[in-house]
């Protein structure tokens, strides 16, 4: 029996535990040791306390029947856990301990998961590189000089580095899929409304979804099974039956029709990424799928549209961090308190987006920017609706390049924003997407492939992803730390 449980997937650990080959105590000990061993180099986990682990083991003792019994899960620092600090990677929320659990956390607790460390993230999830956190950047486990992607960079890096067996991330414009791609793990953004947002500290409410980041597709289905479902506490969650996603794990893509959007294979995309994705599609073809080039004509407007809608909502969502009730407060009279607290508490990218969002909602500009963006958003959604009439899924690269160097794009927001160019449209359209490893660059950096399907059709994503994973023989490759 192994002792290095940090190497294993959740479904493997589940089997060990149910066969009485190990216990949650041993599993969490292995993960805890691993965190202490590697986190100083990766910085994926921003708060970890062995006492919390003990408490978690006590809490989950009688949850043996739970679907995640004894499985260590890292939670992104923007999802509320009762009594535990949550900061969104920001100084402004320092010391804030929510008095309640997010709905996904309630579900994880019910199924016996061990809520381990907090995963690092770009401040308030604004970013694609996990560099803007007040806890310092997270490093890519495949190459410490490189970024892990973002904003759920901590979650993806933690899973890749074995600092957690699985993790929860959140995805507003690619924040689960892009880091999953750059860290060589699996990340799924569910359909908007599939998973409750209650307890997720909002970035852009109409785009945010919580989703799983895991080592393989089977774990992804396992975690999605736990977190999906209607929540009366979230008016935007959808009251639809949740299928058993493990049933989608079939090694068969015969008859699956794949659309390859030409707008996603444009100039500027890395040659190795492009080749890897094309080769992957060809592999699926050999396995019985059919593919065809399609067009999503409004793709080029997606990034612009997103950078109006998302900051607009964010400017309003982040207004509440004002020093009055919780978190950081810098004294002064009322106006000075607001100014000082927010000046000191927010980082520069957060300020940039608040100003951008405030501007596009201002009287006189609303119609030209926000209203127009809503219109384009509809067009983008219609593009997808049209394709999904004839195709089961769409395959694209997850990101235009593999992981870039730390600091490379920090001072160039536009180039940073473009790293989400392939993931943003799914958020605007509300459709589900998954990123799975599909190859490596010559420099041994992971490349990810994105699969998109129509709303509430996560099953197709999982089926195609599972089949690819089984046949590509990429699974199980982990960085050497």
């Amino acid at each position, binding site marked *: 029996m192994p002792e290095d449980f940090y190497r294993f997937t959740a479904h493997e650990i589940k089997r060990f535990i149910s066969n009485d080959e190990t216990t949650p105590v041993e599993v969490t000990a292995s993960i805890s040791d691993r965190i202490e061993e590697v986190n100083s180099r990766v910085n994926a986990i921003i708060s970890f306390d062995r006492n919390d682990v003990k408490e978690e083991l006590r809490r989950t003792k009688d949850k043996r029947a739970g679907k995640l019994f004894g499985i260590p899960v890292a939670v992104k620092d923007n999802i509320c856990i009762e009594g535990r600090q949550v900061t969104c990677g920001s100084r402004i929320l320092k010391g804030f301990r929510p008095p*309640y659990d997010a709905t996904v956390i309630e579900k994880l607790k019910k199924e016996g998961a061990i809520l381990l460390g907090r995963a690092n993230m770009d401040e308030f999830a604004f970013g694609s590189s996990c560099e803007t956190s007040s806890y310092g950047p997270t490093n890519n486990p495949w190459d410490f000089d490189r970024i892990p992607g973002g904003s759920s960079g901590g979650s993806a890096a933690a899973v890749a580095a074995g600092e957690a067996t699985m993790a929860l991330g959140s995805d507003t414009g690619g924040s689960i899929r892009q880091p999953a791609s750059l860290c060589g793990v699996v990340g799924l953004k569910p359909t908007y409304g599939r998973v409750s947002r209650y307890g997720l500290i909002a970035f852009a409410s109409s785009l945010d979804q919580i989703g799983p980041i895991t080592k393989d597709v089977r774990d992804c289905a396992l975690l999605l099974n736990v977190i999906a479902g209607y929540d009366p506490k979230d008016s935007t969650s959808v009251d639809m039956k949740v299928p058993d996603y493990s049933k989608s794990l079939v090694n068969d893509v015969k008859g699956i029709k794949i659309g390859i959007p030409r707008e996603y294979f444009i100039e500027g995309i890395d040659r190795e990424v492009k080749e890897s994705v094309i080769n992957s599609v060809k592999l699926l073809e050999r396995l019985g799928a059919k593919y065809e080039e399609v067009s999503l004509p409004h793709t080029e407007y997606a990034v612009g549209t997103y950078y109006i809608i998302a900051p607009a909502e964010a400017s309003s969502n982040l207004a509440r961090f004002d020093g009055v009730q919780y978190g950081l407060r810098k004294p002064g009279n009322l106006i000075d308190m607001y100014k000082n607290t927010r000046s000191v508490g927010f980082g520069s990218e957060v300020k940039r987006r608040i100003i951008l969002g405030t501007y596009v909602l201002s009287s006189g500009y609303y119609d030209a920017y926000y209203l127009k963006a809503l219109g384009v958003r509809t067009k983008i959604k219609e593009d997808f609706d049209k394709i999904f009439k004839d195709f089961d899924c769409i395959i694209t690269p997850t990101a235009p390049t593999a992981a870039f160097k730390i600091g490379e794009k920090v001072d160039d927001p536009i180039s940073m924003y473009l790293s989400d160019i392939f993931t943003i449209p799914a958020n605007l359209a509300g459709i589900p997407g998954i990123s799975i490893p599909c190859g490596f660059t010559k420099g041994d950096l992971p490349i990810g492939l994105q699969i998109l399907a129509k709303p509430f059709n996560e099953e197709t994503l999982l089926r195609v992803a599972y089949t690819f994973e089984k046949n590509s023989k990429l699974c199980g490759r982990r960085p050497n730390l």
Partner: protein
Amino acid sequence: MREERYEAVMGLEVHVQLSTKSKIFCGCSTKFGAEANTKTCPVCLGLPGALPVLNREVLHRAIKVGLALDCRTAKMMKFDRKNYFYPDLPKDFQISQYDLPLAANGRLGILTDGKERTVRIKRVHLEEDAGKLIHMEDEDASLVDFNRTGMPLLEIVSEPDISSPEEAYDYLTQLKTILKYLEVSDCNMEEGSLRCDANISIRPKGQVELGVKTELKNMNTFKGVKNALQYEIKRQGEVLDEGGTIKQETRLWDEAKGRTSPMRTKEEAFDYRYFPEPDLVPFIIDKELVESIRKGLPELPRRRLERFIEDYKLPPAAASLLVNEKEVADYFEDAAGIYKKDAKVVANWITGDIQGELNKRSLSIKELGIKPNDLADMIKMIDEGSITGKIAKGLLADMVETKMNPRKIVESKGLLQIKDKGELDKILYEVIKANPKPVIDYKNGKVNVLTFLVGQVMKATKGKANPKMVNDLLRERMDKL
């Protein structure tokens, strides 16, 4: 002079707190007067991650009000965010309704100086209330009580159809009456469950174009609204007379000083950056729901007034007095249903002596504690001749004090009318004996001293004798002398 040169144009914005058990977007209690910050939860505190869910009862009550005001109920409504920073607003935005209000295009009939008028209702929309700031006297600090945060408010906006402060007063009274009939709000201005702002401009008579308006705030009574408008008409007239121009601004009414003063100008007005609330999906309002609410509407004051005049043969003035307060009108109908002989007598007692008791004790008719049945019994006792009208007036006060049935009070206090001739004769004898001079005067032809003697008898019987009977008997006895 001025009144003849200018005419005023006014519109009112009324905020009504709906008296539902729980708040508009969470399950917290709406109870007034609880200890500060005890009726709160993550949702109404605006804690990060918490999400609003619309209270269905709030929606139903709002639809009810819309229908009672002859509004068109929207087929689809949505909520919007009104963004501004203030410490009593925990999210730093208020969830309100901007361009798709729940109901619009209604009207309200009012009667001023005997003239009927219709004021059009522009819109009726839902929003959440803010908290309450408490400014410390001995310290340079303010405290916030969030109990009021998230209380359901209905904003009722009139068109500028009101042309005098008296009409404004009547509009408010009539609106309050309707809301009380609908049993949707306590309409208690002191507790803040009904608040009113006013817009007012004046223009030279005959001019079609509207003048520049000011918005008046901080009126705490209906009378205050009337006084503020009267002041503002005068003020604006003086400004124009002196060749000045009216500034578009918000002005605060100071009740003690009896004047308005500027609060902020149009340039200083907030840009609220309204945009659709992404945490609440648009609501499709079911036709069947609206119809079932329409069917459940109670009889409204206007219809009831007609019915009182027709069915009970009441004079319009009395009927109107009764109808203005739903509780009083209900009380009248209950009492008139028991005492069927003459509804006018019942109405007279209620609008006269009972109303007097209500005013004197500042109680509602329910609090007064005279049951309709007791009032009917008392009137019957007068009819039966068991008590005199004079006794009845005193008896009413006794009924309020003791909450007892009048028959029991009369019995225990021995207030029954003296009908026994023998008993009365004895008293008469005593009175005649004690007043030899008036008796001689009478015998000498001064017939009007009889009134004095009757009075003496009444005094001796403490009002229990029937004055007519005393009169007759006295005459008889003295003629025999």
